[in-house]
């Protein structure tokens, strides 16, 4: 929807006069939406528009920062291959700067003349931002003037003589006064004033559009932003809004027309731009010198570490191929001078190793033998036939990207080590730009239009996960919310425009930039919302575009669990394993995986993965790599899963759309599964250059970049494929595959790294279920399943569990003999500190004599004691939990008593006279009590307790010729398509966005799991039951595919009857 008629605001055209053809112009005060609510165009749009209008150049000069300059630079120097509009123009002057609001309440724009000037700007912005809250700047003229060298200064009107003199004294001929004509009375006054200063003091003037947007049609968006900034509605905004839409990049002839009295002031912009030597690509990034042992160079030391590592990895003689690949890699690394980068990561990993923190590289680093040799990754790229060029390529000239996962519970130690070693001045985290997403864009725009908040909330709720799409697809939706059509149309149009605009900066999950020189010389740094953290003003894409090297310090829960597994195996079973030394290709492990017996296993524990496993039947490590990559949203949306499985099962012949695809897709039976394959396909059959393919990869991995470029990609792919003789319908199919792949597809190397963790966790689960369960429970929260599911699963695999008991339980779950002792951490409602205190006290002073001794020694609050009693943790003192709770409740232990260190409690371990009045506890009540405190009961499953009641109901059902309840153990004996009734406890509910409204529930009874598939119509009807009940009764149909059993639900109902009825049906004596 066009809100302003394009061209309507253009001035009446006049005939060009003589001499005007030679006038050039550079916009020196371009402002983008990285001025956060004070600019209405993306930096890319500003640059593209300047190129389109044939400007001689443009500068991106945002408020109090350099947030958008990298994006503008990329557009001006190397735009996307798939951009549909303008390409690089020779001699186009792209400049950068920033506009600063000083505490003296004047504004100046600064531009660096050279690299020194650039560093000064970075330092100034950092100083202004570091000590200030979000959106504020703490910078005064006194801070600015001593750092004025190598900078151009533009004093923003209104001008005063004093300010002009003060700045001129310092900046001299580097001070300019910008003027503009935007058809407001105010700008007339500014121009008049500037002419006076020019006449009186020879002030240097130049012309600018003072643009807030690249085209006038963006005025409504700008107005909406202004209202958001002021937190007002459009009706109230009045003079806060710009008077007209003139603050945009005007066509040259219009500018000439407007300034025909002073064309020299247009030309002077080019002269100013030519004074500036600095370009962003002059930033010379120096990685910190690694701590080399004396006498070594970085090259030699890396070579030495690599070969030492290889000796360790390959215990026999090094294969010739490995040596060749290693030499090739070392050569490229030396040429590109990346040694210090590898050595820095090596040092960080060495620190982690020294602290016993488990880690593993992921992503493309697994393509490198060097990374494998020095221990950054654990997958052998030679054996896996992975390509180094996918990691580092001379042609691509892009910095390597090494992501390393550390144990999730200990990543902070690694981050603190980096800060300690390199200091805050040399290490900072990369930011993420938080943008307006659908719901936020709609909410904010609607508020600006004055739509009542209650209505806005209702609309947002209606949007759900589908966002604006749902609103667009529902006809006349505005009537439902009682909003008038014009307001609705405008809100929708503007929310759509606002979508993707930057809102503020966030902190990247783990991206670090480490530099040799102070980081503030290179990029401004500002305070992050997390206490004590600072972020640079660029995000990971900007850092990549400027070829800076970052490291990603990420976290993974499974690494914590595996490290704990290895510790337990070493300490209790005398088995010394590491990730790299686990017995490979163990058939028993693969048998377990094929049965989808993978609760708790890394990556393949989800419902979708478990459904695929019996069909894919992994037999070796590469099959696991495929499995990990296959069940991802990318391949799922691209429709690759079923063709692959059919081909794998021999039900479908392997075919290729084109003969050139055969070598690429042979490994995966003609179906693209990995990201690299998609890249190679477009090179092979769409004629992409490697550069274009790489650009495609980056577009696919960035949802914001995808937004505007996918159409260009489509055209390019279809055109390329036509040239290769591929019919359009096949070409479209391949394009859809690529489009679906998006950023949810794994590269092969990444899948291999993950598959290694999958194998390791499967191996331990298969051979040491007690160790696996113990470690996994000690690493919670992580993964898909709650502790009760993990415990029940481990019990089914033969692990035995000992109950929680303060006389024997540590804080963590422990192995005691052949059993797992439940740890005190199971009591999640009690603070960790208090639970640790129980363990420490017992270890220091010995076992507790009796309940009185326990209470006297630990001085725990009464509520904690009650919870311990309810969980059965005090069973050593009293078996009857209810009597114990009744007794503890009479304890006069006040908070003050243990603040003073003198307990006032008069606890006597005697029977109270009223304890006979307490009702008897049934089995169901005991189970309920344990579930409430710990989340599980070791010796009885709730469904097991209910079973006799279910059997009673079965008798009634059979009398009425209705389908009786079955248990999970009976499922395999029942035929396909048999009607069935099930009862169970909900383990996991999933409704993935890719499943087209389907819902999947894993139900659990005392024998195992049951997979319930709920179609959208049933889901919509029974969804309240699903979300409000823990126990479900499911009526449905069995669907069998091979060994895979699903139940298609026809009806769902809450299982449990009212308490009274239940007590009648299942009295305590029955158990």
């Amino acid at each position, binding site marked *: 929807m066009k*809100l*302003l*008629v394009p061209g*309507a*605001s253009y*001035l009446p055209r006049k005939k060009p006069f003589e001499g005007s053809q030679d006038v050039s112009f550079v916009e020196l005060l371009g402002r983008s939406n990285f001025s956060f609510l*004070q600019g209405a165009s993306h930096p890319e749009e500003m640059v593209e528009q300047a190129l389109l209008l044939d400007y001689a150049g443009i500068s991106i000069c945002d408020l109090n920062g350099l947030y958008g300059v990298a994006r503008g630079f990329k557009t001006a120097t190397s735009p996307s291959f798939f951009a549909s509009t303008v390409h690089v123009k020779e001699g186009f002057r792209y400049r950068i700067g920033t506009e600063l*609001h*000083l*505490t003296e*309440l004047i504004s100046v724009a600064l531009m660096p003349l050279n690299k020194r000037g650039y560093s000064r700007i970075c330092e100034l912005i950092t100083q202004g931002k570091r*000590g*200030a*809250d979000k*959106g*504020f*700047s*703490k910078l005064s003229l006194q801070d600015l003037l001593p750092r004025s060298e190598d900078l151009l200064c533009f004093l923003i009107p209104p001008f005063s003589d004093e300010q002009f003199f003060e700045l001129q004294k310092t900046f001299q001929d580097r001070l300019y006064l910008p003027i503009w004509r935007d*058809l*407001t*009375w*105010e*700008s*007339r*006054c500014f121009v008049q004033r500037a002419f006076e200063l020019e006449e009186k003091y020879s002030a240097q003037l130049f012309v600018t559009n003072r643009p807030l947007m690249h085209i006038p049609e963006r*005025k*409504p968006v700008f107005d909406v932003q202004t209202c958001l900034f002021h*937190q*007002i509605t*459009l009706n*109230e905004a009045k*003079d*806060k*809004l*710009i*008077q*007209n*839409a*003139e603050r945009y990049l005007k066509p040259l002839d219009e500018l000439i027309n407007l300034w025909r009295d002073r064309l020299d002031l247009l030309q002077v912009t080019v002269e100013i731009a030519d004074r500036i030597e600095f370009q962003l690509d002059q930033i010379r990034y120096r990685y910190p010198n690694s701590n080399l042992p004396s006498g070594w160079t970085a090259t030699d030391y890396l070579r030495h570490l690599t070969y030492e590592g290889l000796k360790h990895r390959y215990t026999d003689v090094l294969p010739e191929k490995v040596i060749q690949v290693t030499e090739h890699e070392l050569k490229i690394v030396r040429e590109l001078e990346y040694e210090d980068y590898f050595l820095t990561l090596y040092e960080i990993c060495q620190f982690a190793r020294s602290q016993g923190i488990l880690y593993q590289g992921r992503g493309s680093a697994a393509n490198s033998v060097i990374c494998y040799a020095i221990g950054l990754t654990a997958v052998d790229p030679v054996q896996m036939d992975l390509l180094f060029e996918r990691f580092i390529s001379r042609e691509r000239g892009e910095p390597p990207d090494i992501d390393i996962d550390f144990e999730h519970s200990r990543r902070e130690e690694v981050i603190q080590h980096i800060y300690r070693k390199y200091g805050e001045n040399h290490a900072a985290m990369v930011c993420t730009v938080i943008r307006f997403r659908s719901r936020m864009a709609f909410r904010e725009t609607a*508020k600006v239009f*004055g739509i*009542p*908040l209650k209505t806005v909330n209702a609309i947002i709720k209606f949007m759900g996960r589908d966002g604006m799409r749902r609103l667009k697809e529902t006809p006349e939706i505005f009537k439902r919310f009682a909003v008038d059509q014009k307001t609705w149309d405008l809100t929708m149009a503007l929310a759509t425009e606002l979508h993707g605009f930057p809102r503020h900066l966030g902190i990247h999950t783990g991206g670090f930039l480490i530099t040799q020189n102070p980081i503030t010389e290179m990029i401004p740094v500002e305070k992050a919302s997390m206490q004590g953290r600072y972020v640079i003003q660029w995000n990971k894409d900007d850092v990549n575009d400027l070829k800076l090297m970052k490291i990603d310090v990420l976290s993974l829960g499974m690494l914590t669990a595996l490290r704990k597994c290895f510790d337990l195996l070493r300490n209790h079973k005398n088995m010394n394993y590491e990730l790299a030394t686990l017995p490979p290709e163990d058939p028993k492990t693969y048998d377990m995986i094929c049965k989808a017996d993978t609760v708790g296993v890394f990556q393949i524990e989800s419902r979708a993965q478990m459904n695929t496993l019996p069909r894919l039947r992994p037999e070796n490590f590469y099959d696991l790599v495929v499995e990990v990559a296959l069940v991802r949203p990318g391949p799922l949306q691209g429709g690759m899963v079923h063709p692959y499985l059919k081909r794998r099962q021999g039900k479908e012949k392997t075919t290729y759309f084109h003969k050139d695809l055969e070598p690429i897709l042979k490994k995966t039976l003609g179906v693209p599964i990995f990201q690299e394959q998609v890249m190679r396909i477009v090179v092979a059959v769409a004629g992409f250059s490697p550069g274009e393919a790489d650009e495609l990869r980056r577009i696919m991995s960035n949802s914001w970049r995808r937004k505007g470029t996918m159409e260009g990609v489509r055209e390019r792919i279809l055109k390329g494929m036509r040239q290769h003789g591929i019919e359009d319908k096949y070409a479209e199919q391949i394009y859809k595959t690529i489009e679906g792949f998006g950023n949810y597809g794994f590269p092969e190397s990444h899948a291999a790294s993950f598959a290694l963790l999958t194998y390791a966790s499967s191996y331990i689960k298969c051979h040491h279920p007690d160790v696996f369960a113990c470690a996994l429970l000690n690493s919670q929260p992580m993964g898909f399943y709650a502790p009760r599911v993990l415990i029940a699963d481990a019990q089914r695999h033969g692990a035995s569990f000992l109950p929680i008991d303060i006389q024997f339980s540590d804080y963590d779950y422990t192995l005691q003999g052949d059993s797992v002792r439940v740890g005190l951490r199971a009591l999640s409602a009690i603070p960790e500190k208090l639970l640790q205190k129980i363990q420490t006290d017992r270890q220091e002073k010995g076992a507790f004599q009796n309940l009185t001794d326990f209470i006297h020694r630990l001085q725990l609050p009464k509520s904690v004691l*009650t919870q311990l009693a309810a969980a059965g943790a005090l069973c050593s003192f009293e078996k009857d939990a*209810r009597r114990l*709770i*009744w007794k503890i*409740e*009479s304890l*006069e232990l006040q908070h003050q008593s243990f603040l003073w260190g003198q307990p006032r409690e008069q606890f006597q371990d005697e029977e*109270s*006279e*009223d304890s006979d*009045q*307490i*009702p*008897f*506890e049934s089995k169901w*009540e005991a189970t309920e*009590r344990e579930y409430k405190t710990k989340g599980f009961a070791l010796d009885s499953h709730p469904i097991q307790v209910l079973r006799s009641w279910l059997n009673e109901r079965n008798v009634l059902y059979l009398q009425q010729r209705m389908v009786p309840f079955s248990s999970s153990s009976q499922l395999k004996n029942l035929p396909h398509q048999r009607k069935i009734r099930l009862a169970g406890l909900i383990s996991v509910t999933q409704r993935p966005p890719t499943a087209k409204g389907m819902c999947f529930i894993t139900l659990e009874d005392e024998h195992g799991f049951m997979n319930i598939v709920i179609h959208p119509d049933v889901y919509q009807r029974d969804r309240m039951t699903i979300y409000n009940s823990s126990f479900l009764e499911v009526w449905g149909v069995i669907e069998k595919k091979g060994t895979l059993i699903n139940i298609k639900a026809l009806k769902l109902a809450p299982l449990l009857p009212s308490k009274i009825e239940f007590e009648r049906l299942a009295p305590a004596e029955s158990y």
Partner: protein
Amino acid sequence: MRILCLNLKQAQEASCAEVFLKFSPRVQFRYPHYVFIDIESTSALFGGENQILKQAVELARRISPEATGAIADSCSVAQVMVNHKPFDISKPREDAKNIGRLPLMALRDLEGLEPWRGKKGIDPVIQFLQSLGMDWIEDLFHFQEASFRERWGDLGVTLWRRLQGKELQVISPLVPKEPMMGYSYLEDPVSNISLLMSQMDHVLEYLFLRLEGCARFARRVDVTMLCEYSDKKHYFSVEPVAPSRDLELYRDLIIKHLESLSLENPLREFEIYVYDVAEKVEQLDFFEPRQTTEDRWRRLVSMAHQAEIEMGFLQVEASHLPESSFSLKSDWPQELISKDLIEWSEQAVQVRAVYAKGLAESPRPSLLLKEPMKLSSIMMKRLKVLTRFPIERIQEAWWKKNQERDYYFALSNEGQLLWVYQELGSEKYFLHGYFD
């Protein structure tokens, strides 16, 4: 003691007790929505306990339509009954029997004038008892006071006493002292007068019920209204010739005022203040001194409005369009401040730009036509446009009706300096004003 407990269901202000003063001088409100009335000595005046309960509930339902009531010996049991056995009247000295078969959760309401203290009140005790398998209040009658004291100290003793009907809660006579003020936050902000009035009616009726309860009259009513998404405030007052308790009269006067207001944004909150007097007194003379000059002006404007005369204060507005750059207001005008908004936080600054602050300085003609006059091409030829480019371009309110104008200075044949504009995208010119 016989206690009538009313449950008004929705949170009320303490002042609502004043409404029930007609039933007994001993009335007490308890947050959030309970009113306790001691009817021991007054029930006979209303025809017995049944009648007084009926009348009290009827009156309560004018405040809250869902209101219920019950009568018991103690305040705490009366509260339990109003929630679990509404409209029931417990026989004297049979309170325990009446509540024995209620579930344990009913203990939450065993409060009366003093609610359960502490973060969660009685809940931990209830949960504790339930965790031990007890379900009914009567299960607790077997326990000794000592067991309760041992476990829950004072709370346990209070609970035991309330269960046994041994706690004395006395209701003192009520002296009205709450200001006669009503406030409402509108969940669904409104800009429609009739919808707004339906919300105001509720507040007005409540205030007038209080007046009736306290036997007082309204001299003047002030209304203040706040808009959604802004701090914009509308204010007016109505004052009939003589103090009155006639709700209809005040209602009509308020509607008249509301109709004269232009509501740009929906209203979110309003406040009504009633100036009450003991009895009907003659209105003060208009020329008698009032508090301030502003008050006198306001009163004059208010009087004029009541006589349907258009009158008010001239408020300069920061609007782009000249014709809407001032307005007539009932309230005292505020000074127009047009400059960037500066916010400080620990010596750091944030500037929120007011982009058209220059509007305040822009030249505006001394005589602005109420309706711009269209100029024919012949008339335009007679004028001399003084500038090559527009003096100002105004593109305003694109979300309503797009107003896009280029303003020029022009000289008439007579030498009169005129202010003309051209509509963007058309050839039409309009005369909008004259300069001195």
